[in-house]
Each structure stands twice: as structure tokens, then as C-alpha cells.
């Protein structure tokens, strides 16, 4: 055997190319062909070095096999292909068959061991990834479950998860509330047991349907039912979900229901919102000719109880009242609610023969009149009650509530401890006023309100010396009073001053020549709200600076009661106006030592008397009549402190003469013309 020694350098290039073809055809190597060629060349180096060693270092094959795996030469058939190419190549190069076979055996062994290690490592990674993913899924699932659980428990909509046959699997607290039964009583029962009309067609999945549910004690409530299917992953229906929405409350509050918003925490009674919705529901479910009585009441002098005994006692009185009202209607189909601070409502549905309203009211007030003893203090409350008796056919639930409230207002106006039954006729009149009052803002918005001027005359010679500006709505109502009742008068005050101020120069040129020294030509009488307005003096200053008229040309009358009771900024306004130089006046003046003292204290220039004889003609009264004597003394007293006196509402010249004789300086009223536009005044 004298073979020439193999020449590794020459053979290598020969061998790399076919080996690379094998690799390319069997494995995905994430490298460029140049890089792979370099790798194969290096491996071949190692192998030929091992073979040419003496003795051949066949164990070096282990490392080559390992490097093949590390280099990703690991396609399905890469190993056998590579070994085949190498065996042929080495044979051609003349290496001994035995060392070559042994060497390639080691390559295969190294390859197998490395591949097994790699597989185990990958499986380990996989397990780790799997575990992480599982934990994540678990966490997500728990979070989702918790979210669901939260919604399920907190929802105001009743939710039932049932078997396909309707047996409850899970129910939420809201459902228990709607059905009026504790959750544990629902276990194992079916939804169908609680549906009142079992002859109805079955629920269609995915459709909302109106049904009645039966509560304990046999009363029923309208609900919306919506059923859906719960399917598992493979789409097989496993459970049903039914949403139960209490219809009465639903209509009222949409989906934002909660017990708290429906009940009063102090007494546990339904609150106003809840009462209205229950009233609506009872109204809807009652036969059209079955009579209802609705009572609205509030406690007399409740604020007195609060201030005298403290809020804890006040709260106790409210709780006692709640309990007694509830007791008073026990056994009846009735509903008691607290609809305001100390306001309660009682709704009673009668069978057919309803007792007279007076009997019901008497029973309730008697119940309340029992003193409630606590810590030695016996408190009894009296109430003022408004009542309405009607059938669903006669009034809607909203009308009923309004009627009871109107009767209650009426009873209030009669004084304390009164009751009144709703009177349609009286109500219409009141409502007409109410409509006008509430229509005022719109009228103002639409420019229907005008400034009108009422002539003011000097009684001494009946010459017109002034106008009074007032807000005029083309109706026969007193606009000022309407505006006051809605609060619109506050913005109307500045508006009136500013609007009428534009004519100030006109009145100056018209009345300046005839008016006495220091007399105003333009009068504005402000309501209580307007008198208290903090911005009043600023408004007046603006008007004066806009017109350039002297302050003394303006006479502004504040409401006597507002100043007397220190309402808002009324007193400050009076003082400030006087300082500016405006002619200050008080109207609504009734006399009395405090009012007279105020005139002196604030140097009020004009006092406008409010109708001292309550509509009687003074010229027809005997001179020694007490009211006449009192009025004369009042006029004298006012004049003695430097105020001039004016009167309103003078009907005719006879009346005017009488007032003139008593020393009154100015007058206005139908005797001297009604309110009109600028032209009506100047054209006279």
C-alpha cells in the first residue's frame, strides 16, 4: 500500500461544492451562500486534519457533528446527504475506508447528541412559553371574570343565567329585587314560575318581550325580558342568559337605576322619582274606572322643629311621620313616598267604594297628631294636605300628581293645618296665571315685552310732572307680579332701567319746565328681588352716564319690605342711590313705626303708599274711621321727616281731590291715564 498521501487542499474545493448543494437542497440556513461555504470549508478542514493525523483522530468527528447542528445544517435529510458526499469524496481522495467510516460515525453521533440537546432546549423553551401563555390566559380570564362578576352584581338589570330548560344557575341581586325574593329562594327554580301569564307565546331568543312577573303577595310588575343563548367554543348552546328590566323604573331612568337613587336614605321610603314611576306603573295597571286617592302633604312648622330641637330631632320626626303614614294605610293597596324635604305623598288604590276624601285626610292627620315622646319632649306634627280623587280614565298619572300638588299649594295658601281637595275650576285660573308667568321669559326673549309709561300727576294742580316706567306685556295681568313669581324680574330690572333711560332727556324737556325744583321726571318702582340686586347702583350709574342726565331727574323706588328685612343688598342700594343723588323712594309702604323710622334714617325723599284702604274709596269713608285717622297720621309723620307722599291706583278726580286734601303730593292711576308708549305721553 504505497499510495501517495492525500492532498487536502485540492480535494477540499472539490468537496465543498457538492456538500453545499446537499445543504441547499435539504436545510434552511439563514445565511448567505458565501457564509455557508465558509462554514463547510472549516468543517472539511477539521475532518481532513483528523484523517491525516497519525493515528487518525476520529473522535474529532463529534465536534463536526455538533457544529453542523449549530450551523443549522439540520434539514430532514441533511445528515445522510452530507455523510454520503463526504464518504464519496474521502474515498476518491484515497483515505482509508475504516478511519473514514469511524470518523463519519463520530460525526453522526455528535450531530445526534447536539440535535437531541437542541430539541430538548426548544421543548423547554416551548414549555416555558406555554406556561407563560397559560398564566396570561388565566390572568386575563380571571380579570374578565371579575369584571363580569362586578357588572353582574352591580347591574340594576336583573340577570339570570339558566339551563336550557330555564332552571336558574346564577341570578344577580337586581333580579332578586325585581322578583321581590331573596336570591337563595330562586335556586333550582325556573324563570317561568315567576311569569304571570303562562299562556303567552314563549320568548323568542334575541327578542325583547314585555311580561308580567309575580311578586310575593301576588302583585305583579311589568318587565322587559331579553333572552340570549350562551354557546361554548364549538358553538353548542349550553345556557341561556335572560335580562329582566323593571319596566316602570326603566321608562323613568333608562339604565341608570340604583336603589339609592330611588329611595330616601333617611326614611327608607321611595323618593320622588321612584314615586312618580310607581304611580305611573300603578296607574297603567289599574282598571280605568277604579278610583285612586292621591294625597300630597307637608309638615307644618317643620323648620321650627329643626331650629328648636336640632336636626337629629327633625330627622326623627321625619322617620316617625314616614312610619305613621305607612301604618295608616297598612292593609290597603297603597304607596307612601317622601317627595321632598318634609313633603310626603300617599297613593291609595280603592276597590270600588272609596271613603270620602275628608275621612282619609282626617285619619292621616289624626295619626300624625299623636305626640312622639323622646327624651321627655313630646312632639306632635300637624300637616297641610292636598288631595285628588280620580280614576285612571279621568286623569293621567302626571296630571294626578300635578293636581294633588296644586291642591296642596292651595291648602298652603289657606294657612297651617289645612287641607284642600283639587278643584278643577280654581285650578284653571291658577294655571292661567302660571302659564303667563312661565311664558314671560319667552315673551321677553321674543321681544314681546315693552317699556310703557304711566303718567304721574302733581295733585295740587293735576299737572303731569313725571312718568313711571314699567314693563308691559300685552295682557291684563300685572307683569311685575308675574315676573317676581318666576324670578325673571331680576334681569328685567336692569333691562327696564336701561331701556327707559333712553327717553330720559325727553321727559326732562317735557316736564323740566313744570316740575318743582329737585323733583324727578322719571320714576321706576323696583320689585323686592330687583331692590335686593347687588348690581343695581352700577346699572343706575351706567344709565346716568349714558344719557348725561342729572341724577336728580331719576326717582327710584325700592320695595319697603325688602329694605326693612335687609333682603340682599336692598339697604345698601337705598344708601348708595341717595349718595349718587338719585331721588330715592319706598313703595309698598304700609306704615308702622319701623317703616317710618327707616324713612328718616335713609332720608328717603318719596314714600309711595300701598292701597291703605284695601280697595275702598277713601272719599266715601267717614273721617273718624280708624283706617282714615291712621293714614292721615302716617302722612303727617312722613311729611314731618321731609318725605313727600305719593299714591297709586287713583280711580277718579273725586278720589284725587281727597288725597290732595290730606297733603299727598303725587298720584297715578286710571284717573290720569293708563300706561302707554312715548307718543301717548308726549301727544297728551
Amino acid at each position: 500500500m504505497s499510495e501517495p498521501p492525500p492532498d487536502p487542499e485540492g480535494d477540499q474545493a472539490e468537496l465543498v461544492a457538492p456538500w453545499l448543494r446537499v445543504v441547499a437542497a435539504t436545510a434552511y440556513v439563514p445565511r448567505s451562500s458565501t457564509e455557508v461555504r465558509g462554514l463547510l470549508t472549516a468543517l472539511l478542514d477539521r475532518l481532513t486534519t483528523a484523517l491525516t493525523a497519525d493515528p487518525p483522530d476520529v473522535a474529532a468527528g463529534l465536534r463536526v457533528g455538533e457544529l453542523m447542528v449549530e450551523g443549522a445544517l439540520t434539514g430532514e435529510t441533511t445528515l445522510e446527504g452530507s455523510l454520503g458526499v463526504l464518504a464519496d469524496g474521502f474515498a476518491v481522495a484515497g483515505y482509508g475506508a475504516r478511519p473514514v467510516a469511524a470518523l463519519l460515525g463520530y460525526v453522526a453521533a455528535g450531530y445526534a447528541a447536539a440535535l437531541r440537546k437542541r430539541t430538548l432546549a426548544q421543548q423547554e423553551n416551548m414549555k416555558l412559553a406555554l406556561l407563560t401563555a397559560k398564566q396570561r390566559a388565566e390572568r386575563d380570564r380571571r380579570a374578565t371574570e371579575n369584571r363580569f362578576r362586578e357588572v353582574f352584581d352591580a347591574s340594576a338589570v336583573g340577570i339570570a343565567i339558566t339551563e336550557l330548560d330555564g332552571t336558574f344557575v346564577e341570578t344577580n341581586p337586581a333580579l332578586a329585587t325585581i322578583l321581590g325574593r331573596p336570591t337563595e329562594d330562586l335556586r333550582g327554580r325556573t324563570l317561568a314560575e315567576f311569569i304571570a301569564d303562562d299562556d303567552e307565546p314563549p320568548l323568542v331568543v334575541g327578542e325583547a318581550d314585555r311580561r308580567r312577573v309575580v311578586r310575593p303577595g301576588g302583585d305583579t310588575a311589568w318587565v322587559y325580558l331579553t333572552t340570549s343563548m350562551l354557546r361554548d367554543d364549538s358553538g353548542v348552546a349550553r345556557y341561556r342568559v335572560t335580562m329582566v328590566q323593571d319596566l316602570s323604573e326603566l321608562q323613568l331612568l333608562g339604565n341608570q337605576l340604583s336603589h339609592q337613587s330611588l329611595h330616601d336614605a333617611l326614611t327608607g321610603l321611595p323618593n320622588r322619582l321612584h314615586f312618580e314611576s310607581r304611580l305611573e306603573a300603578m296607574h297603567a295597571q289599574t282598571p280605568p274606572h277604579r278610583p285612586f286617592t292621591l294625597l300630597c302633604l307637608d309638615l307644618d312648622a317643620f323648620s321650627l322643629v329643626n331650629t328648636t330641637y336640632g336636626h337629629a330631632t327633625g330627622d326623627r320626626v321625619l322617620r316617625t311621620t314616614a312610619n305613621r303614614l305607612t301604618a295608616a294605610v297598612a292593609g290597603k293597596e297603597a304607596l307612601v313616598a317622601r317627595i321632598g324635604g318634609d313633603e310626603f305623598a300617599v297613593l291609595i288604590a280603592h276597590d270600588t267604594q272609596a271613603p270620602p276624601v275628608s275621612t282619609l285626610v282626617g285619619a292621616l292627620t289624626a295619626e300624625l297628631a299623636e305626640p312622639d315622646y323622646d327624651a321627655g319632649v313630646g312632639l306632635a306634627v300637624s300637616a297641610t294636605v292636598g288631595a285628588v280623587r280620580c280614576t285612571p280614565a279621568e286623569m293621567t298619572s302626571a296630571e294626578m300628581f300635578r293636581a294633588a300638588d296644586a291642591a296642596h299649594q292651595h291648602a298652603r295658601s289657606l294657612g297651617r293645618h289645612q287641607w284642600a281637595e283639587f278643584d278643577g275650576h280654581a285650578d284653571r285660573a291658577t294655571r292661567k296665571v302660571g302659564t303667563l308667568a312661565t311664558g314671560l321669559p319667552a315673551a321677553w326673549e321674543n321681544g314681546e315685552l315693552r317699556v310703557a309709561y304711566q303718567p304721574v300727576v302733581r295733585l295740587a294742580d293735576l299737572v303731569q310732572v313725571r312718568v313711571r316706567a314699567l314693563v308691559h306685556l300685552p295682557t291684563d295681568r300685572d307683569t311685575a307680579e308675574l315676573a317676581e313669581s318666576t324670578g325673571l324680574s331680576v334681569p328685567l330690572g336692569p333691562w327696564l332701567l336701561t331701556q327707559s333711560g333712553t327717553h330720559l332727556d325727553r321727559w326732562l324737556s317735557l316736564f323740566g319746565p313744570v316740575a318743582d325744583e329737585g323733583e324727578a321726571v322719571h320714576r321706576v318702582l323696583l320689585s323686592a328681588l330687583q331692590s335686593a340686586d347687588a348690581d343695581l347702583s352700577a346699572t343706575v350709574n351706567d344709565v346716568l352716564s349714558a344719557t348725561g342726565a342729572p341724577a336728580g331727574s331719576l326717582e327710584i323706588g325700592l320695595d319697603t319690605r325688602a329694605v326693612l328685612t335687609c333682603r340682599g343688598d336692598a339697604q345698601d342700594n337705598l344708601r348708595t342711590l341717595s349718595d349718587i343723588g338719585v331721588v330715592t323712594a319706598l313703595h309698598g309702604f304700609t306704615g308702622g313705626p319701623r317703616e317710618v323710622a327707616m324713612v328718616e334714617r335713609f332720608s328717603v325723599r318719596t314714600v309711595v303708599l300701598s292701597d291703605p284702604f284695601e280697595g275702598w274709596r277713601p272719599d266715601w269713608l267717614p273721617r273718624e274711621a280708624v283706617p282714615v285717622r291712621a293714614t292721615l297720621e302716617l302722612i303727617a309723620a312722613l311729611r314731618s321727616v321731609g318725605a313727600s307722599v305719593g299714591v297709586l291706583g287713583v280711580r277718579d278726580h273725586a278720589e284725587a281731590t281727597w288725597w290732595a286734601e290730606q297733603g299727598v303730593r303725587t298720584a297715578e292711576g286710571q284717573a290720569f291715564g293708563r300706561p302707554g308708549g312715548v307718543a301717548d305721553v308726549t301727544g297728551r
Partner: protein
Amino acid sequence: MGRGDVSVPGMGRSDATSWVPDGIDLERPSAARLYDYLLGGAHNFAHDRELAERFIKAQPNAREIARHNRSFLRRSVLFMVERGVRQFLDLGSGIPTVGNVHEIAQTADPGAKVVYVDYEEVAYAHSTLMLVDNPLATIVQADLTRPDDILDAPQTRELLDFDQPIGLLMAGVFHFVPPGKDPGRLVAHYRDAIPVGSYLAFSQFTRDLMPSEMDRIVEVMKSSRDPMYPRSHAEITALFAGFDLVEPGIVPTAKWRPDPGFDDGGDPDRAGIYAGVGRKH
């Protein structure tokens, strides 16, 4: 899910039946793990391997196809790196196996950034583990048919600069997008989110090359989580609206700018997958 059906998670009570799937369903093989197996990886389970064997039976060339597709991905990434792209969005990245995009790109330029996207839990978890120490690569778990979930994901916004060219990679994934998802609009949605000069590398199964084998594959994949929808040359061309195809256009993967040194002696038309790269104009 029909009308009136809802999904409600489990009630979290030990005694109530759980309505939640376990999150990871090893009973149903996944395409990501099948692909890994075909490339010689061990990141797979018995069910995946069973599917793989059926896949190979339907398409004896399966391993070759997988290899060529993976190779195309690598060449297209390098092609983009050569043209200055330094950030990649790899949709449907699958199980990290040999030759991941961030390895290819960061070998060329260590500053290259990669956002992987896959919706399969195991692929996601695996990638997360692998990228723990790589601040320039991340993975978003999302469905590529919901582009906004991906484009607006905080990781995406944090890593990628949408004023610089982006390499959008959809290699071997689009055949899982059903025709009903409006594929054209889907690609356009991504296209509109990336600046001019960005690239799209796209490859997917087609019936044009080996129709009968493809039909058998579609049949096999129906039993997996990822059914397949092959597309024709014309349909794939339409998806490149707004992109200028670079040479050689849409061709079998083995013919897309091949590495001449890697001649495996096979017929490139048996690669089963069309591939192409386009530049947004």
C-alpha cells in the same frame, strides 16, 4: 354567533361550569407550530406534527416550500436594509425559529428595530421570552386583520418612527386572511400608515403553481385553527396597489432574487408560494 348569542366569561365559581376556553387550545394545531416543524424546529406538539404529516402527504414538497419562503423573507429583509430601511413590522411572525427578522436585520445593522405581530398565544409568549433582552425588538399580540390594534399599539408607537421608511413584512401569512375581510382594503390600511419610500414584502400560497396539491392543502388546513385561502397572481398583484414592484415582480419564492451560490437543483416553480416586494410611491 347568531343574533341573540352572547359570549359570557366563566362565572368564576368553583361549582359553576366554566364557559371560558382554556385560552390555549393544544387540541387544535396551529399554523405557526406547523411551519416551525417543517423548518426542522421542535417548538411543536403531537397535534401539530400530525397535521404536518398530513400536510406533507398532500404536498410532498412542503419542507422545500417552507424553506424557500423563509429564505425569501431573509433576502427581502436584506434587500430593504441595503435600501436604507432600518425598521420592520413583521405581521404573522410565528414561532421564533431559525433566521428571525431581528437577527437578520440587526446583524446587518445593530440599530435596526423590529416589531413582531402574532395573535397565537404560544408564538407571542415565546417571542416575548426571546426578546427579553433586546430593547430594539418587541412583539404585539394582535390579529393582522385589525390594523389599528397593531398600528396604535403603544409598543409599535414607541419603537417605530412613522416618518421614516418602514419594512412591512407579510411573509407566508396572508393566505390565512379570508376573502371576506376585504384583503385589498386591509393592505391599503397598512400602506396608508407608512411613509413614501417604505417597502412591502409579501408572499403567500397560490393555486397557480401546483393546483391539485394546493387544493389538498386547503382541505388539510380546514381542520386547523388557520384555514388557508390561496390567491392567484392577479389577485396578489392587485394587493400591491400603491406600491411599485421591484424586479423580478411577483414570482415563485425561489425565483425572487435568489442567492446564486445556493443551487439546490430543484424546480423553482414547485415552491408553491408567490413572493414579491414593492416600494410605496
